[in-house]
C-alpha cells in the first residue's frame, strides 16, 4: 500500500469541497498529478496543490492507496465521497459529508466531524474518534433508500437524525444520541452506548436499535414485549425488547408482521 500525505498549508477562506480526495481518484497518480486534481472553494475551482502540500504517490489501485490528511481540515468537505477501496486517515477534525456515498475501504477521522457524514453509505468503514454532527449515516434529501451497508463507529456523541431511512449496515455511537434515531428505517442496526434523547424509531418499519443507557422520552408507538439476552458489539447484556413503530405500516413475513425493534439495556 502506498501513502499520499496531504498537509493543509494554505487553508481556504471559505470551505473547500474535496470530493476528489479519494483513493479512487489518487490511484495511479504521482504526487504532482495529485496536486493538480480539482477542488472547489465556492465558485473557484483550483488545483489541490493550492491548499495542500502533497507528498507520496498513489498506489496502482484504490485498494493500494492510503491518504493521510494533516493540518487544519475542519473546513474541508466531502473527503472520501463515493470511495470504493483504500484508506483515508484524517488526523484532526473534518467538515461535512466525510464518507458520503462510500462503497468500500476505510476512513479514520481522529477528531470530530460535522453533519451528513456516512450519508447513503453502501459499504466500508467510517471510524470517528471524536463526535459526529447531525444526519450521521442518514439518507440524502428525499431519498428513501438510505444507508445500505458498512459500518460507522463514532466514539463520541452524535447529533439528531442518525440513520434516517436506514436500510442496512451498522452505526455504533459511543456517547449519546440527540433526537430522531432510525426515523423511517427499513433495516440496519444502530447501537447507542450512551443515552438517547427521544423520538427513537419514529415511523420505523424494520431494523434494530440498541440503547445501553436511557431513552429520555420514549415514543407511545413502541410496546414492550419481553426481555432478551444478547451480545451487542462484544458486550453480553440483558435488554428490554420493544416493538414498533406501531403507528407505521409493517410488512408481513410468513403470516406475521415484521416490526422495528428497540432494545434498552437493563
Amino acid at each position: 500500500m502506498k501513502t499520499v500525505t496531504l498537509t493543509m498549508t494554505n487553508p481556504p477562506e471559505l470551505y473547500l469541497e474535496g470530493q476528489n480526495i479519494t483513493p479512487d481518484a489518487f490511484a495511479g497518480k504521482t504526487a504532482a498529478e495529485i496536486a493538480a486534481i480539482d477542488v472547489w472553494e465556492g465558485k473557484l475551482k483550483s488545483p489541490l496543490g493550492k491548499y495542500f502540500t502533497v507528498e507520496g504517490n498513489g498506489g496502482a489501485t484504490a485498494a493500494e492507496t492510503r491518504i493521510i490528511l494533516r493540518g487544519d481540515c475542519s473546513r474541508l468537505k466531502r473527503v472520501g465521497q463515493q470511495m470504493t477501496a483504500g484508506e483515508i486517515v484524517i488526523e484532526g477534525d473534518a467538515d461535512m459529508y466525510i464518507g458520503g456515498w462510500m462503497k468500500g475501504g476505510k476512513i479514520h477521522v481522529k477528531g470530530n466531524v460535522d453533519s451528513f457524514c456516512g450519508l447513503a453509505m453502501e459499504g466500508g468503514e467510517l471510524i470517528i474518534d471524536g463526535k459526529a454532527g447531525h444526519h450521521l449515516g442518514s439518507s440524502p434529501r428525499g431519498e428513501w433508500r438510505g444507508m445500505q451497508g458498512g459500518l460507522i463507529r463514532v466514539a463520541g456523541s452524535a447529533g439528531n437524525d442518525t440513520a434516517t431511512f436506514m436500510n442496512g449496515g451498522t452505526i455504533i455511537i459511543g456517547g449519546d444520541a440527540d433526537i430522531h434515531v432510525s426515523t423511517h428505517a427499513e433495516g440496519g442496526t444502530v447501537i447507542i452506548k450512551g443515552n438517547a434523547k427521544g423520538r427513537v424509531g419514529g415511523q420505523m418499519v424494520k431494523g434494530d436499535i440498541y440503547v445501553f443507557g436511557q431513552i429520555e422520552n420514549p415514543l407511545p408507538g413502541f410496546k414492550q414485549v419481553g426481555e432478551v439476552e444478547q451480545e451487542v458489539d462484544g458486550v453480553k447484556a440483558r435488554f428490554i425488547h420493544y416493538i414498533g413503530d406501531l403507528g407505521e405500516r409493517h410488512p408481513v413475513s410468513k403470516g406475521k408482521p415484521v416490526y422495528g425493534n428497540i432494545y434498552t439495556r437493563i
Partner: protein
Amino acid sequence: MANKITLNMITQRSIEEGVAMEKGKTTPEYFEACSIIELHDEDIKALGLVPNQLVRVTSECGSVVVKVVKGRQTLYPGLAFIPQGVWANQIVPPRTQATGEPQYSGFPVTVEPVASGERRKSALELVQGAVGMWRGEQ
C-alpha cells in the same frame, strides 16, 4: 418569589406585530407590539412582578430587555412568548440542527427583573448596535 426563573420560550407571529411591521419597523407601534414578553400569571407571580414591568430575558446566545404582559393567548406555566421580530431575535438560537431553520421556538431562557436604569432598546438600536453601526438617535 424568585429573582430568576427558567422558562421555555416560543416566538411566533402576532397580529399586532403584523400590522405594525407593515407600517414600519421604526414606528412606535412596532416597538410596542414586539418588545414584550407574554407570561403565565403564575410565572409573573413567581418573579414578584406586576404587568408592564421590564425584564431581562437571556438565552444560550443572547439577552434582551422587554416588557412583561399577561398572556393574551393563554400560556401554561413555564411557557413564555415573545412575538416574532427584532426583540425575539436577540435571543433566538441560530442553531438549525442541520435543517436550515433556527430554533425559533422551544428554547430555554431565564427571565429576571431588570436592574434599575435598564430600558428597552429600539429596533434600530438593537440591530445596528449588534453590527457596530449604531450612531445614536438621529
